[in-house]
């Protein structure tokens, strides 16, 4: 729990002046991070002046970096001005004088339209003034004091005048290097121990004032929603607005990472699943809508709630099928190679576990508790091929009975909603449905994301990737592959995978301890927040202002990248406990989603990195693992080398 403004002021006994940082201490914006203001500008520029302004936000960020570099070469104490930044931008974008003036005005207008008071900033300035303290603003920024005054007024701080504002770009000195403090002392005629400073930056607002003998309080809660700055494009705004809303509502309490993940990214994905189906219903006759277990669980729950609330939606099924169960049902004429796939090359399993995998008792002369090497297991499977085929035939009968009950064999076109990623399981399902209905049932797979392995599957079933697909850019395809494990862990159901169907037609789910533990610890809370958030988005009641109109393929992809590709430290820590259970029988402890850093990093050499890259990409959450490596001083070089070898894995995903 953060200190209240009263508590902070109570701790300041000597000060007669409260000096307060401006951005993210006194005021903030209704977006998750400062650069997203430029995304709003880009959105407005494109709407007013056309596509030539696409990419403006990134150009604006790069122009500021260039201007700062240029200024520091002249005088390291001084800050840049907005005019210098726009001059750099003019070089990049070939802007004339009129356009430069327009951009400065637009930036000021946009800042004012998004500004809002930080509740803590409001409380502490009110409290200080009530205690008779003078309140001044000390800020490192490129905007003139007059603009900061205008922003302060727009945020409700009507008492602020230009005399109360000390901004770096007007004084040739910065708070960041301490040079601005003598300016403040001189202007106010006070000494360092007369000032109590509050800000959000450990260095500029904590360490540097301390060097000048100024007491301070650092409160960085407004920074909790920040991610990699360069990834700024209009598509990031929906998640940005949701995360900004969470930042503001949790300011006085504690940042709840599960709530934010669920109400942000996952809510957007779930809303997209539903809205995508609605778009299909608007375009063609559909015999049935089927949300696939487990990726469609949350969307199915929300769908049903919307129906209960009177939304005009047809009944939809929640249909349980999995890669392994559909595959096993197809093994009626399995050859040896297919049977071998029941066991991994380096896997050791007992006979009972092998029997559970194939769904029948096997004839073998081995002790029940003996761990069998893959060669022995496979020999047993081959010797029992006929028994396995009979079991597969039985499973197929039960599967068809189940699909009939789910109305998937009803003649007509069916929509199957799944998270992703290759479409092959939906293709298998579509073939079962088509065979069992003599071709009367056709399916269309609606996925959140597909990557290049979906291309050959397009010959078997109609596929649509909402946020990304195999036709997307190669880099984005790789980025999608890197976040698959994360998405599967977050967008899921409270039950395990289906492994069989009972004779009464009900699916048999397998429960695993790692998945149950993860659900109890965090995934369940994420799910609840996601369902609430998705409902609010679709019904237009979300307090962030995000509505169904904001849910687009671009914004959902951006949300997936914002969290999945550039996770914050708190997200990596919270999700590190999740294990992914992938074996064909869904037994065992699974793999950790965030790979652990090697214990002895000095033994790792560059030649090991390709293998490590493959492991992270296919078995773990790539970006969560890379960031974890990067956050550790000993292993940071591994992450950086990975970025160098595979640039698409670096934090920048906006081109």
């Amino acid at each position: 729990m953060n200190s209240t403004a009263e508590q902070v002021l109570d701790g300041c006994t000597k000060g007669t002046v409260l000096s307060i940082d401006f951005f993210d201490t006194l005021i903030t914006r209704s977006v998750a991070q400062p650069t997203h203001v430029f995304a709003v500008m880009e959105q407005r520029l494109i709407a007013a002046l056309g596509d030539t302004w696409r990419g403006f936000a990134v150009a604006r960020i790069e122009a500021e970096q260039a201007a700062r570099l240029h200024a520091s070469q002249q005088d390291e104490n001084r800050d840049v001005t907005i005019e210098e930044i726009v001059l750099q931008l003019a070089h990049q974008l070939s802007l004339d004088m009129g356009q430069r003036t327009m951009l400065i005005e637009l930036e000021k207008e946009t800042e004012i339209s998004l500004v809002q008071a930080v509740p803590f900033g409001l409380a502490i300035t009110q409290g200080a003034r009530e205690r008779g303290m003078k309140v001044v603003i000390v800020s490192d920024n490129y905007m003139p004091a007059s603009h900061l005054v205008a922003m302060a007024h727009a945020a409700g701080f009507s008492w602020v005048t230009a005399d109360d504002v000390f901004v770096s770009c007007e004084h040739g000195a910065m708070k960041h290097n301490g040079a601005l403090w003598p300016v403040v002392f001189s202007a106010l005629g006070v000494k360092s121990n007369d000032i109590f400073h509050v800000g959000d930056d450990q260095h500029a607002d904590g360490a540097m004032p301390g060097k000048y003998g100024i007491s301070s309080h650092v409160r960085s809660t407004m920074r909790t929603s920040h991610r990699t700055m360069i990834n700024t494009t209009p598509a990031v705004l929906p998640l940005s607005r949701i995360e900004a809303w969470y930042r503001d509502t949790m300011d006085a309490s504690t940042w709840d990472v599960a709530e934010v993940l669920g109400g942000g990214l996952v809510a957007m994905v779930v809303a997209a699943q539903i809205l995508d189906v609605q778009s299909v219903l608007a375009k063609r006759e559909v015999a049935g809508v089927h949300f696939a277990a487990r990726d469609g669980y949350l969307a199915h729950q929300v769908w049903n709630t919307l129906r209960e609330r009177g939304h005009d939606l047809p009944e939809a099924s929640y249909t349980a099928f999995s890669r392994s169960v559909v595959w096993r049902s197809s093994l009626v004429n399995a050859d040896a190679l297919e049977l071998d796939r029941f066991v991994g090359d380096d896997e050791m399993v007992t006979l009972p576990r092998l029997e559970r995998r194939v769904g029948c008792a096997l004839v073998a002369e081995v002790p029940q508790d003996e761990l069998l090497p893959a060669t022995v297991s496979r020999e047993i499977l081959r010797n029992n091929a006929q028994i396995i085929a009979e079991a597969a035939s039985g499973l197929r009968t039960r599967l068809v009975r189940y699909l009939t009950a789910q109305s998937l064999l009803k003649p007509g076109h069916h929509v199957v909603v799944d998270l992703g990623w290759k479409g092959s399981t939906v293709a298998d399902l579509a073939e079962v449905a088509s065979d069992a209905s003599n071709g009367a049932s056709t399916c269309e797979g609606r996925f959140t994301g597909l990557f290049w392995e979906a291309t050959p599957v397009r010959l078997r079933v109609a596929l649509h990737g909402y946020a990304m697909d195999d036709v997307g850019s190669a880099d984005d395809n790789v980025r999608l592959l890197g976040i698959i494990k994360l998405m599967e862990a977050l967008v899921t159901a409270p039950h395990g995978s289906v492994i069989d169907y009972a004779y009464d037609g009900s699916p048999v789910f397998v429960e695993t301890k790692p998945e149950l533990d993860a659900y109890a610890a965090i995934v369940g809370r994420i799910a609840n927040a996601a369902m609430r958030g998705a409902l609010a988005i679709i019904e237009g009641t979300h307090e962030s202002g995000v509505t169904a109109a904001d849910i687009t393929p671009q914004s959902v992809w951006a949300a997936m990248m914002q969290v999945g590709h550039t996770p914050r430290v708190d997200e990596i820590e919270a999700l590190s406990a999740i294990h992914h259970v992938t074996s064909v029988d869904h037994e065992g402890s699974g793999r950790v989603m965030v790979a652990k850093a090697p214990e002895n990093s000095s033994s790792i050499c560059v030649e090991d990195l390709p293998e490590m890259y493959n492991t992270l990409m296919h078995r773990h959450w790539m970006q969560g693992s890379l960031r974890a490596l990067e956050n550790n001083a000993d292993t940071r070089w591994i992450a950086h080398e990975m970025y160098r070898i595979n640039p698409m894995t670096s934090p920048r995903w906006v081109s």
Partner: protein
Amino acid sequence: MACKRSGVQFPSAPPMTMVAVVMRTYERPVLLARAIASVQQQTLSDWHLVIVNNGGDPAIVDNVVRIAQQSTTSSSGTISVLHLDARVGMEEASNRGLAATTSEFFVIHDDDDSWDERFLEVSVKAMGSHVSAAAVVTGITRIHETFRGGSVWPVMHEDFYLTPGRLTLRGMIGNNTFPPIAALFRRRVISQVGEFDASLPVLGDWEFNLRAVTTGEFVYIPEKLARYHTRTSESDSASGNSITIGEDLHRSVKLQLQDRWLQEPAVNGVNKGLLSMTASTATDIEETQGGTRTRVDVEQIANRTAQIIALQSPLRRVVRGVLHPRHGVRAIVRRLRRIIGK
């Protein structure tokens, strides 16, 4: 030659659409499925995709199209298939596809390439603001991919080198500077300069571009909205690009074209064949010296070479250069150094 249509049937006349997309294919169903998806996902919906099945098994193509049409997309364009009974040349296939459509603009979409979803929207918009343009060409990403055993995966990608200068007659005359996937043409160009040259087994797009550019400018949009896919050497041979598996044929056809142009009368004192040969040689210099002279400006060389040819009895030098390539290259390098050094 007989042909039959399937998919969406035309009434007596094909429906008038904004863009006709002609996709030639021959027994590459996996890549075809991807290419169709690339068209279906366009944000501009007023298109008519004609798939010209160039002598391949009709059932395979029909199956791919049938499944693709079961996908509900935001785009509402139409798809039809033209089955040719026997295989014809690529350009003849293009002409057949174009004849089956009426539209304001057209694109040749190879069955192994793909677009960003905004390609048609942006290109058509650009045509609207450049009313005299013959074509719009977007930036290109070249994707190197491996196709093996029915699966395809990206290996790497790179920016395809293209500039406005490479879309002028002088910029294009030495070599084919862009693949068809990047270009949207105004349909009237065909009535002005004729259709694709069906006698050419390859490079028909280059030959057409050189005629088309005489009717209006090729507008360049730097945004990379076209994806030119090429298969790596590890790929199954049936999946290869015409340019990567038929380099000798390309070279031979290029020489034939240059011979043809040499016999054409000069325009404004410049013979198209001479210009092409010299500009082509300049490009060869760039390629052979790529390791030592990294940023040779081919367009500049082509332009300056054209000036030289126009001013100084060109035929003798060029013929000598063709007969004795090493001498010719050396002479051109000497001359260029002298000019560039001024």
